[in-house]
């Protein structure tokens, strides 16, 4: 003959185990990365920026969310060539003049050959229907790719917010914002 008290105790023990497992699963769900790609765009070269945008727009096509964090040499690529910044100090003016003003001024990381290589690559891209950086940026905006710009890089090189491009989803931020996104992403890239 079985003792009903023992059975009740067993069931109670099982119930508390189930509750424990359930709360563990809930906690795990919260740490599960979302279907997102986070990318640091550190380089300011035509080839590397192109790769970054191809991957970002491609990831949205694959049903993912995409976040691009522009820092250091990547920052001047997001300047608007038509916009003018207010007053700058000497160093700011120097950086401003020496770094590319927007996507149309970036060069190849290799075989630039005083601009000849870049011009050849651009004409080749046109011939082969490869989207230009300008088109890529436009497409990224349309697809809802979010762009973050490193405030520290901007400050270092003397860039002002008013000289940056108009982009639907652009945020000026620091490393914590990027890390929050990256921590929650399945894919993280540094380009």
């Amino acid at each position, binding site marked *: 003959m079985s003792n009903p008290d023992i059975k009740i105790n067993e069931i109670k023990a099982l119930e508390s185990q189930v509750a424990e497992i359930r709360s563990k699963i809930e906690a795990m769900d919260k740490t599960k990365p979302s279907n997102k790609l986070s990318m640091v765009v550190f380089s300011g070269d035509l080839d590397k920026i192109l790769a970054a945008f*191809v991957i970002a*727009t*491609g990831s*949205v*096509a*694959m*049903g993912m969310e995409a976040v691009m964090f522009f820092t250091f040499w990547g920052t001047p690529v997001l300047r608007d060539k038509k916009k003018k910044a207010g007053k700058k100090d000497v160093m700011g003016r120097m950086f401003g003049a020496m770094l590319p003003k927007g996507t149309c001024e970036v060069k190849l990381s290799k075989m630039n050959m005083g601009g000849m290589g870049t011009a050849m690559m651009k004409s080749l891209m046109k011939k*082969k*229907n*490869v*989207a230009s950086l300008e088109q890529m940026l436009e*497409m990224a905006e349309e*697809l809802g790719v979010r762009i973050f710009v490193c405030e520290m890089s901007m400050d270092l090189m003397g860039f002002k917010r008013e000289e940056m491009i108009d982009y639907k989803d652009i945020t000026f931020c620091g490393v914590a914002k990027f890390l929050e996104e990256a921590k929650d992403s399945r894919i993280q890239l540094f380009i």
Partner: protein
Amino acid sequence: MSDDIEITKTMDLKGMPCPMPVVKVSKGIKEVEVGQVVEAITTDPGSLADFPAWARTSGNEIIKTEQDGKTIKFYIKRKA
């Protein structure tokens, strides 16, 4: 021939290199109802690997692939 497949929408993606075919088709598939078929025509050889990868990831189904010289035709059923 694919006379047996009822096509709701045809997308001409000829001459477009990566990533355009996949970006365009991911938008185009949302313009048909679930269960309907999009015909996508590409000339990018990379799309032979890319389209199945895109379909698997986005949860859609390529019901048929036809290749005629450089032209590739995908028949994609919207599933998700």
